[in-house]
């Protein structure tokens, strides 16, 4: 039954999406070298359609760029006997190390709650924190703090109306990657919406990798930790000796 239904479904899909995305990225990989100071990726594309542009609801574009997930502990300090100390903590199962959203119009107008839930588009939806209410009182404060701190660090950003959309067909957006970038696969997602509903979506990946000396150091630290530790000591000893030798020549 399922076997002969599957091809039917496949045929049905392109028909359903009257508008589809064609997308390009300015680069598909980012190399982190010693002088890496942040990067910018350009996401550009067009909306392909067989029929004339629908007139009822305007087309919106939402672009998200998402770094690799990590688990986090968020701690809160409270005053206890006049002393500030970490008194409560929650564990967030998964939170992206980087998350940027750009949209062509305010998100409230571009996306309905249900679609947001389904595709996990806004930042709070991208964070998975199950069972935190059992871990601490007012657990919502912890998630708010997580968003606030990461926004201040430039790791999370929401830039509404930063996607340029021309004639409901061509779009482009610049997404800035911060200098403090974590290695991993970055997911770029593009959503087309009308009346809050997702009409089409597309996903691309950007490989962020350390290169050159950075890569060599990182790998040696993890693969040969003991040798690496001794190398660090040799560097320290050599530098200490060199400075001493240099200064003993200079009379002052």
């Amino acid at each position: 039954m399922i076997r002969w239904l599957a091809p039917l479904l496949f045929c049905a899909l392109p028909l359903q999406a009257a508008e589809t995305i064609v997308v390009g990225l300015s680069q598909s990989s980012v190399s982190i070298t010693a002088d890496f100071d942040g990067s910018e990726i350009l996401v550009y594309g067009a909306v392909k359609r067989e029929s004339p542009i629908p007139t009822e609801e305007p087309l919106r574009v939402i672009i998200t760029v998402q770094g690799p997930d990590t688990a986090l502990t968020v701690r809160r300090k409270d005053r206890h006997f006049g002393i500030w100390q970490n008194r409560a903590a929650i564990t967030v199962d998964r939170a992206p190390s980087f998350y940027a959203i750009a949209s062509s119009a305010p998100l409230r107008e571009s996306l309905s709650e249900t679609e947001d839930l389904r595709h996990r588009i806004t930042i709070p939806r991208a964070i998975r924190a199950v069972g935190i209410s059992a871990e601490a009182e007012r657990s919502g404060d912890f998630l708010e703090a997580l968003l606030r701190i990461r926004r201040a660090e430039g790791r999370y950003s929401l830039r509404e109306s930063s996607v340029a959309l021309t004639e409901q067909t061509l779009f482009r957006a610049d997404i800035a990657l911060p200098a403090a970038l974590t290695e991993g696969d970055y997911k770029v997602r593009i959503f087309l919406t009308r009346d809050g509903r997702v009409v089409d979506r597309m996903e691309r990946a950007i490989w962020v990798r350390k290169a050159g000396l950075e890569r060599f150091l990182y790998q040696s630290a993890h693969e040969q930790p003991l040798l690496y530790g001794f190398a660090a000591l040799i560097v320290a000893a050599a530098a200490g000796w060199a400075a001493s030798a240099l200064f003993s020549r200079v009379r002052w």
Partner: protein
Amino acid sequence: MTLYLPIAEVSVNVYLLVGIGGIVGFLSGMFGVGGGFLITPLLFFIGVPPAVAVATGSNQVVASSISGVLAQFKRKAVDVPMGLVLLAGGLAGSGFGIWVFAILSAAGQVDLFVQLSYVLFLGIVGALMLQESLRTMMKTRKGVPPLRRAHQHSWVHGMPLKMKFRASGLYISVIPPLMIGAFVGFLSAVMGVGGGFIMVPAMIYLLGMPTKVVIGTSLFQIIFTTAFTTVMHSVTSQTVDLMLALALIAGGVVGAQIGARIGMRLRADQLRVLLALLVLAVCIRVAMDLLLTPDEAFSITAVALP
């Protein structure tokens, strides 16, 4: 000019790192303290994760201590036998400290205990030192010649296993330096700091070593403990960032040389006043952390995914 740090995974200004290394190295060369108390919060402030800051900081302390101790060796201001005895005690003490730390953390609230005892300890040591050194300074200013007692006879001298410490001009039992070494090793294992702040006053006041010899001997001893810590960190947690260490070391070794030179030009009592002020400043900083309302009550720590 910014530099991307491969282990810390942040990009920071090189000159800032060299500057931080320089300041810490300067203090270390001048007073014979490691400087871990300063380097960890400073690195944390510019965005380096605490675990990386602690591990890499210890590598930089190795470099600046070697730089400083070589400057002191030229003045014959290092008591190697004393340093080795303190080190032997220190190793035993830190082994015990690690064990106690594990018990305390299992019981919870270890942070609070550590911070409170740190404040209390530094406060007392700093205040006593300031008082003593100021009094000595007043006397010198008034023109009263300082009493040149070789050393005071106290309970320290009644103990067996006496040994000659030529550079310090002491003939005492090895038990007190062993005990002091063990105590400082214990404290540094529990508190996670090098312990130079406690070692230096203890050598001056409890063992009666001359201030100038204390600095070199303390540095000599610190080289080995921090070298051990560096290797331990790189093996157990891979948190030593060589790129970060290089920038810190570049500043640190130069700072240590300058600090050592300036320290040699100061009189012993002036040095002690400055050290006392530094100890009190660290004490106040830790106390402020505990008492003042923080700007951000929340903090985030990444946990490695299983």
